[in-house]
């Protein structure tokens, strides 16, 4: 026997097999084709391989590999044909009109508020911040007292707090994470703490009793009010665009001093292509960490200083996407959620 003969036989067998697959009109006929060519005992490809014993030893691997390739090709042709024969509609295999709609898959997506949190975190990461978390059910100590907010001070009322039976509460802000982190971690600290906070509010367009907050805290030697302004202005311009104007207004939070509200004025293009500015939009509260907070965490407030800030990703999502009502975030209508799928 000539050495090339088995390979040529294989090629012929493949052509014959492919033709048989193509002409099989039913699943049953196709199965017959499979058994005829690929059956383990009686199959023609197997039979051909069995004849390899007659080949020179150095030829065997070559022919064996070729036979396996033929087998693979026939198998995939059979699978493809199987899929076609499984269809009920006969137009499937005839791609004469390519304007017909394509086949789609379901797309999932992150919640719009999660997406805002992701984007905020991405910016602060480049400014050296890491991620921290703390419990949502808290003690009065962590939610108020350690944050320089005595329980008998009206400031403890301003965020109407949900209390739990037994004296604990649901955190009314993410600031308790500041204290827990300062107690536990080494300095310098630059952390972000995204998380859910709770207030005793009824549901309306601008209030929900639970919502996301993103806390930030930086404590080290030599951190000043200038660093606070610079960091937050840098953040705002990266998030809202380089033309964004940033304004710092005095405010009051018991756990920061000086305290500030931060507003931004965004530049955008109108439909006519003209540049326009939004109104000032309040985006976060911030301030220098009050020395009393550092002292309560056992940190030398003469040596270390820091700044902290807190913002509402939900509110920022409203502004970013032009959503009129916070309640849409909790309704979870899929037609709403699908609008924010990033493709």
């Amino acid at each position, binding site marked *: 026997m000539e050495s090339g003969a088995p390979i040529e036989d294989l090629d012929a067998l493949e052509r014959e097999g492919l033709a048989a697959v193509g002409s099989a009109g039913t699943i049953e006929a196709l199965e017959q084709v499979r058994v005829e060519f690929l059956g383990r005992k009686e199959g023609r490809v197997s039979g051909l391989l069995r004849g390899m014993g007659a080949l020179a030893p150095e030829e065997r691997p070559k022919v064996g590999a070729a036979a396996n390739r033929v087998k693979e090709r026939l198998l995939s042709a059979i699978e493809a044909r199987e899929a076609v024969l499984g269809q009920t509609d006969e137009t499937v295999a005839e791609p004469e009109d390519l304007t017909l709609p394509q086949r789609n898959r379901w797309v999932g997506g992150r919640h719009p508020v999660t997406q805002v949190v992701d984007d905020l975190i991405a910016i602060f990461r480049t400014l050296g911040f890491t*991620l921290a978390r703390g419990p949502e*059910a808290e003690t009065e100590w962590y939610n108020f007292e350690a944050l320089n907010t005595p329980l008998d001070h009206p400031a403890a009322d301003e965020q109407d707090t949900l209390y739990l039976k037994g004296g604990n509460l649901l955190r009314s802000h993410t600031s308790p994470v500041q204290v827990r982190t300062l107690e536990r971690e080494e300095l310098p600290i630059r952390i972000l703490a995204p998380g859910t906070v709770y207030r005793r509010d009824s549901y309306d367009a601008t209030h929900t009793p639970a919502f996301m907050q993103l806390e930030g805290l930086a404590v080290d030697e030599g951190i000043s009010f200038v660093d606070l302004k610079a960091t937050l202005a840098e953040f705002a311009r990266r998030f809202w665009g380089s033309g964004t104007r940033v304004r*710092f207004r*005095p405010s009051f939070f018991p756990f920061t001093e000086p305290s500030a509200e931060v507003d931004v004025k965004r530049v955008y293009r109108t439909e006519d292509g003209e540049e326009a500015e939004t109104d000032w939009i309040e985006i976060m509260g911030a301030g220098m960490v009050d020395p009393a907070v550092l002292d309560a965490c056992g940190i030398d407030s003469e040596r270390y200083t820091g700044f902290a800030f807190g913002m509402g990703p939900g509110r920022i999502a409203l502004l970013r996407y032009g959503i009129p009502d916070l309640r849409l975030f909790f309704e979870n209508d899929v037609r709403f959620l699908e609008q924010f799928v990033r493709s």
Partner: protein
Amino acid sequence: MNVSHRWLQACCAETIGSPHEIAEHLAARGFPVEEIQDLSLRLGGIVVAQVQEVRAHPDADRLRVCSVEAGGSPVQVVCGAPNVEPSGWYPFAPVGSSLPGGTEIRKVKLRGQTSEGMLCSERELGLGNDAGGLMVLSGPLKAGEPLAEALGLDDVRLSVEVTANRPDLLSHRGIARELTPKGHASLTLPEIPGGNGRFDQTFSEHPAQVDEHEVSVDGVSIRVDAGDLCSRYLGLRLTGVRIQPSPQWLQSRLRAIGGRPINNVVDATNYVLYECGQPLHAFDLASIRGRSIVVRRAVAGEPIHTLDREDRVLSDRMLAICDSERPVAVAGVMGGAESEVSESTEEVLLECALFEPGSIRSTRRALGLSTDASYRFERGVDPESMRAAIGRAAELILATAGGRIEGPLMDVCPRPFARAQVPLRLGRVERLLGIPFEAREVAALLEPLGFLVDQGEDMLTVEVPGFRSYDVTREVDLVEEIARTYGYDAFPETLGTFRPSASPDHPLFRLEDAVRDELVASGILEAQTPAFASEGEGEVEILNPVSTEEAFLRSRLLPGLQGRLEYNLRRGNRDVRLFEIGTVFRLGGRGELPQEETRVAAVLHGHAAPAHWTRLSPPLDVWDIKGILNRLVGILSGGRWTLAPGLAEGLPSDGLDRGSVFRVIDEEGAVRGVGGRLEEGELDLPPWALEVWALEIALPGEPHLPTVPNFQPLPVHQGVDRDLALLVPGDAPVESVLALIRERGGGELRDLEVFDVYRGPELPQGVRSVAVRLRFRALDRTLRDQEVEDAVREVTRALEEELSVGFRGKHE
């Protein structure tokens, strides 16, 4: 805090800006103005009118027909108010004008009588709550004159947001101090029409009888027993007063800020409250038993009928103002009705006191009663302006109610106030603010606010005035005042160097992110639901919930998501796939915080893929949920957890059908989650709904670090496939069959795949035909047929012997 623009101007020697300029200025100093209201606009079109004639309505008992003179020729108006009288003066809305609520006035016929316009009550004009009759006007009036002018309401009201640390701004004088460049130095006291000016600021020199415990003058005594809760109590006796409505100018002042005039004495105390920030109270001295005031803690259970006509019961932690027998006022919160100033009052005892903020706060919380007085007391009232305030009120009363002051001022002062001297280091200012300040700069920034600055070399000493004694007690408080007055916008924004955080990322974030990625890739949308539950759905109870549906914290995520699924199906969304990553709560130990656990849950309803014209997509089924579950298990545990069919004995099914359910088992053997088909009764679904699939798994508390894959060399040698058609008895799970094949297939068995499962009539009862494909491959050589045959023979032997598996077409 509502501020009248005119009143504010009257408190300043300098000219203040327009309402909008003021708003901008206050916002820049930390006190945004929420609303600017032009009061005259609200009353535009409303005029003063005099009723000339009142006749009975021919066809209605309650209505009267009036002839009204409002500038032009008299018009006929039908009026239902009981208090309309001939020659009375009332506000009048002519035809074509609108009420503040937006109601447009038209010419109408009421029971056959033409009515051209409307005579108005206080309520209808938004000027008060009295809807019982027409608002009666007095004083020199002109028919047709705009009402806003007649009432002095051609004014602008600013609603200023005052932060909790600045009680000194809860008055017109306080706002004026923040507003003008000279600040404190430019404050004036508005002149009181008819007043003699004798008792204003100079009243502090008026003769007074002072004691730390008790003062008694002409049979009237004041004693402070609870000196810890009341550091000072001033009393002043006025006799011969005539209680009547306040003059127009005083009523206008109060109305301009949304107040309600009552009578001249009460109005005088309220006026001083809004002007100076000092709450005052006026007692009808005739109803004070024993003519003595005792400031003491209430006896538990002591009752008092307060001014708001409520019966209240005091506790022994509350401070009460008492006469010789009983409480006559809840200190700092509200007076009692029995000692209230009324029309018959002739003798008044004016009170001006200083109470402990914390005590007032806990009392008003316990009573659920917040008043203008308690609001100021719990934040802190100026201890230095008490004599000025009581003098100011006395002057007002004398000017509007007549009478005279009897005897000296009674001043019981258990704890005199002393100003704090706060040291201020310039170096510290620079370290906190990032730029240097010189001593004289600091002085120039602080002094207009009322601070007295003693300039040293590197250290200044700052004397804090009484009205700032609550919020400025430390060096850092002064640093804030410097920054605020300097202007936040004047600080540079240069980003300096920083050291990155020494604190590592909390590992759960990365895990949550990986779970999100996986579920999003599986075509599921992320949902967020609030962590509340109703009774029965959670363990941890909320003390003060907004509603009973949200009175507990959830112990599972699925009920919330199921609700969202129902909501979507109700709205006709047929393909709904939602997941959530959130916290669930369980009761902690006694006195401990609840235990929190982060979980992931999902609900799936609909088809495996979007419809396409080439073929119908099958509904989601158990193999879809199993795939998601297995992929999640891999992500959550790095392969350490397993998925098993069925529920563990004794565990609740959580609404899942016990026939199509899986459980997630951790390395300790504990169940960490479940997934499967929700039972039909679990959900309120429309008739067209398909099966609903759900899962809920707890994330590990301390996540494993993601495992780093170990590279495997790519195969260079051909593999060999062997297909086996197994006849698997009903009691042998396919998983055990596959496990046995893997175990006995030898080191060269690389892949194992189930490609067909079949049940048919020709097969014995319960037996399934399972077709598997075994792929053998050696790393170092092409496998010989014999090696593969040997491996397959070992596998089939083991299957036959150990699991009674038969083989189809074995005859082949």
